[in-house]
């Protein structure tokens, strides 16, 4: 019996949706919108179906489920190989959920048809990147994502959009240039002897290839550059504030929500998994860069006068935590990192939506020009507050879970980096609360008096975000239960292939609890999740 190729459909449905939208006449704007929305809802529904059908205890196929594998470019050993595990599962769901919300809730103001078409193509590309298990296929999706994003920023962005779009495209493409050579070299070198057939299959190479240490490190860095640009890791982050600030709201939400995760996901799947020895060897470098990114992003965010730029820099800091967790190489740190990928997507996505709403009303994002909004729009302010607190990482909301697990998990294996990085948590509170204070507190002046309250349609858009923020914060167990087995499998692989031994997980946790003395209730939630 042939199973329903659900993962293939996750890619094909938005692709065909994009084509369909492109061929519908411009004179039927409603049909265009309905088609786009239905396509994205269908894709989102399928991703949810995958979530519920996902078996958290499955061990067949190296833990990958819903696998579909077909020969594609036979002479080059390339196959259409898709599969999903706990690490990619929630990123796929996030993508599936975020896109319909963005398509339904955010108005691009002009050229809806082209906008929606690019949006759907973007969705297909992102989906494909998260579920590809073939190096060539992954690169294809990873790279194709640039095109719709480029056009979204360039076509629907703000004043300086062409510059930002070009910078985004070229920065990312430079990284990809190294990765492409790395991919080809990996496949060529992994080929066993001159008679062996060439393959680009991720699992095949990860399991069977035996690179010399120095070779593996070169290859690892070829991949890592591409991902470091995408994450973005300090000092390659300079494209991000420009791209975010100039992108239309929908573009920013997608960019922060899922696109940046391609980098962190790539580091895990195509860095650590493929080249464990090199990843272990280069830990100090990545931990340092991640820590610098956390502090630098936070300081830079504090200095911003533009609200959207502030959120953009906060992303640099947050993604630093994810990279920190990834290279701490302990079970709870990586699990926390993966959780943080999803949670950052939710909370930063919501922040960008809120900033976009402020811009719609006031046509400025300058913090100095906004004042006292809480007085005139209390519900709006409340929504902003919840989302902001989640971004700060207040216990009980989703941002806390991942960040805390990263810090706690990394303490055993990367202690001094954690000590510095923990400062980033405090800085996050500083820049976000300060911004909130300046924008929402005080008496509104003339310009801000007429600031409109949240409309019900906007509320409907924010509601799912806030729901997820609270749910994932209060009850992260379902997510952790699905992520952790895959992370453990990854770590077993790393320990097999390198001299890495993760410190005993319970040890640092206890120490932390002792250090905190009283500890708080959220600690327990987290440690439970680890079990």
């Amino acid at each position, binding site marked *: 019996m042939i199973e329903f190729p659900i993962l293939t459909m996750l890619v094909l449905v938005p692709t065909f949706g994009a084509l369909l939208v492109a061929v519908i006449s411009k004179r039927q704007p409603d049909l265009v919108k309905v088609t786009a929305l239905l396509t994205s809802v269908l894709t989102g529904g399928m991703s949810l179906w995958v979530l519920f059908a996902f078996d958290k205890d499955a061990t067949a196929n190296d833990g990958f489920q819903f696998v579909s594998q077909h020969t594609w470019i036979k002479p080059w050993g390339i196959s259409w190989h898709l599969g999903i595990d706990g690490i990619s599962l929630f990123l796929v769901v996030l993508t599936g959920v975020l896109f319909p919300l963005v398509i339904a809730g955010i108005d691009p103001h002009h050229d809806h048809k082209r906008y929606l078409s690019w949006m759907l193509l973007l969705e297909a590309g992102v989906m494909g990147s998260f579920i590809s298990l073939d190096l060539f296929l992954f690169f294809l999706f990873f790279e*194709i994502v640039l095109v719709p994003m*480029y056009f979204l920023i*360039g076509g629907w962005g703000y004043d300086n959009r*062409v510059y930002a779009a070009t910078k985004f*495209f*070229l920065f990312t493409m430079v990284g990809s240039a190294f990765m492409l*050579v790395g991919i*080809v070299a990996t496949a060529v070198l992994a080929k066993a002897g001159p008679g062996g057939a060439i393959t680009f299959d991720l699992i095949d190479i990860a399991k069977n290839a035996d690179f010399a240490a120095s070779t593996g490190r070169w290859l690892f860095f070829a991949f890592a550059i591409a991902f470091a640009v995408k994450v973005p890791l300090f000092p390659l982050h300079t494209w991000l504030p420009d791209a975010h600030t100039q992108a239309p709201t929908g573009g920013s939400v997608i960019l922060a929500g899922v696109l940046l995760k391609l980098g962190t996901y790539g580091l895990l799947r195509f860095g650590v998994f493929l080249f464990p020895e090199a990843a272990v060897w280069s830990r100090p470098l990545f931990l340092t860069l991640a820590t610098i990114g956390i502090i630098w992003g936070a300081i830079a965010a504090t200095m911003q006068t533009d609200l959207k730029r502030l959120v953009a820099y906060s992303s640099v800091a947050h993604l630093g935590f994810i990279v920190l967790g990834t290279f701490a190489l302990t079970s709870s740190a990586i699990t926390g990192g993966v959780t943080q990928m999803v949670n950052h997507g939710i909370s930063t996505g919501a922040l960008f939506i809120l900033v976009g709403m402020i811009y719609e009303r006031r046509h400025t994002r300058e913090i100095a020009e906004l004042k006292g909004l809480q007085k005139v729009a209390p519900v709006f302010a409340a929504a902003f507050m919840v989302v902001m607190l989640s971004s700060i990482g207040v216990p009980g909301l989703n941002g806390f879970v991942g960040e805390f697990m990263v810090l706690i998990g990394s303490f055993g294996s990367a202690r001094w980096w954690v000590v510095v990085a923990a400062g980033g948590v405090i800085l996050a509170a500083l820049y976000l609360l300060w911004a909130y204070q300046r924008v929402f507190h005080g008496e509104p002046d003339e310009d801000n008096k007429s600031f409109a309250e949240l409309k019900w349609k906007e509320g409907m858009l924010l509601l799912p975000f806030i729901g997820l923020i609270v749910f994932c914060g209060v009850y992260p167990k379902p997510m952790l239960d699905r992520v952790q087995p895959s992370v453990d499998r990854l770590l077993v692989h790393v320990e097999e292939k390198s001299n890495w031994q993760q410190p005993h997980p319970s040890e640092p946790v206890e120490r932390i609890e002792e250090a905190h003395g009283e500890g708080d209730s959220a600690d327990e939630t987290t440690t439970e999740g680890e079990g």
Partner: protein
Amino acid sequence: MGALIADTLQGPKVDWFALSPLLVLLGGAMVLLVVAALTPAWPKRCYALFTAAVAVGAGAMGFATWARVSHEGSQSLVADAMVLDKPGIWIAITICLAVAMAALVTDDYLRREGLDGPELYVLYMLAALGGIVMAAAHDLIVLFLGLEILSIALYVMAASHRKRLASQESGLKYFVLGGFSSAFFLYGVALIYGGTGSTNFTEIVAAFDATIDDRSNSALVLAGVALLLVGLAFKVAAVPFHFWTPDVYEGAPTPVTAFMASAGKAAAFGAMLRVLLQALPHWADDYRPAVWAIAVLTLVGGSVMAVVQTNVKRMLAFSSISHAGFILVGVEAAAHGANVSMGGDGVSSVLLYLLLYTVLVMGTFGVITAVGRTGDAATGLAGFRGLGRSKPALALGMTVLLLAQAGVPVTSGFVAKFAVIKAAVGVHSYAIAIIAMVASVIAAFLYLRIMISMWVADPEAGDDTRETVRVPALLGVAIGVSVLFTLAVGIYPTWLLDILP
């Protein structure tokens, strides 16, 4: 006495079937030249369709010979002056394809510019003939004959827009510099002859087999190799022998530019592979560093200089230089395993790149032909402004072609680049592979600029009063075929890779 003469002058055995693509093109050119001179002007489109039909026929004969080579292996022709093998036929088919598409692009262009007449089509076919001879030559003199047939036709074609001064200038410039480079090549032939006593590849290789150990005559031969390389590098427009390219590409009629960038490049690279691999395999270790250096200069130079241009034809001239650099990476990879049988990943990546680039560049210049408008002068970036609104389908097609030139996945351009990178990495030329990829990112900047003009740039005063862009039927067919081919190969390249030699 008579019998003696008959014995002495007995011609070689000629395998007419193997030469059929050449004969079809020659016949087509002669028929068109003679018949069109004797009859009143043919109805519109007939010259173009006739040329396209001849080219397709020649290509079909190419396929027929391909089938024979698959069965019986490579064969030498006309007393070993030429060779019938898959790489040669592949390039012949590529050139025929270029002729067919160029004819479709040229058709309305000539009428628009008031230049109607069959001469350009005749020259296409004759140039193609020369190109095919170059790629199938097994003797340096034969190769030179092919080179001159191609080049002289191209000089005339470049100058064929009688109403544009730029076109005249372009033809003259190309002629002078082209003659210069031919002289280099010819001197190289003479030196190789001096070093080996023959111009025939088989005999050259035999001579080297005997003398390579003591490297006698090495100074003479190395000078010859260098001069041959210079002559060929000029033809493929490699840095630092590229100075003619931007001016000639900009000045020549746009369809002719397309033909130069596609068929001209394919023929020259075919000849380069023949000379380097089949005549001089013993010297691979000596010329490989030179090829490496030229490739790097070409990649970086082409991409960087492209960035500062504002005329789209000039941009694409530099982009074609950068593409030549990419193909040279494949040549460098091929030179690692230089052998007279012309096999291996390097050679096939070059062949694949040539075919895909031919189709790509034809479509791209097809769009520029339309956007150039009457006078063929509106080829600045401004000419493209607002194309996304006025002609969305054309702009979308152009976008696909430009993304393909930038090497974005799901297009043929990516497949071509991937094959070259794979060949280079396969012989451990990592540095050049990375340089090539980074250069292609720099080049991507210029494709982005064109796309920005089409889709994003705000309209300016005077845009409304411009002549509207027309896409006549045959031009539309050429662009459409190009775009579809680009996507088809990008999505499922297996069918092409399976038959790649």
